[in-house]
């Protein structure tokens, strides 16, 4: 598994504010390595799936335009403290990672 995802989920008025930080190089495939002069191949997160208590609530499709160590934030309705928030991603090389937190 690749590096873990850092997630924070806080519930206020029945809405869970979820903030996630995912360590990932997110290479665009347009950069050249300084020493060898070779183009660094694209390596980026393709798909991010966000689940709330086991139900998929959001799917994000990313390309090379998303920053390194992507940050993502969204709000889940009808949430309560104690709910499980899980985020998982797949990148273009087939690597995956996931993280899960209990909303506060």
């Amino acid at each position, binding site marked *: 598994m690749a590096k873990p995802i850092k997630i924070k989920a806080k519930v206020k008025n029945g809405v869970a504010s979820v903030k996630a930080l995912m360590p990932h190089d997110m290479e665009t495939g347009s950069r050249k390595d300084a020493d060898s002069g070779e183009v660094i191949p694209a390596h980026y997160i393709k798909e991010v799936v966000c689940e709330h208590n086991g139900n998929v609530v959001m799917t994000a499709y990313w390309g090379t335009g998303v920053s390194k160590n992507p940050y993502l934030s*969204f709000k*889940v309705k009808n949430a309560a403290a104690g709910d499980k928030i899980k985020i998982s991603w797949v990148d273009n090389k087939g690597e995956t990672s996931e993280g899960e937190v209990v909303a506060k």
Partner: protein
Amino acid sequence: DKISLKVPEIAENGAVVPVSVKTKLDNVSSISILVDENPTPLSATFELTPAVDADISARIKMGQSSNVRAVVKAGDKVYFTSKEVKVTIGGCGG
């Protein structure tokens, strides 16, 4: 305006530009963020379910100053808005 697109007017660092899209429209099925001048203009697409609020924030890369567009699909209609972001990449803003 039905969509609220928040981006900095001037992005000090084009590698990390915070973008936030919020809308009060109903039945939002997807939100997409595009950057005109990037080699791949479609930066990100978020497919939402009724379980989430249409309120997304992410950080994207911009190769140069460009328009950033937010496209929102709500029901069977498509809305969009755009803002211009100047990218300085190093050096002082403004």
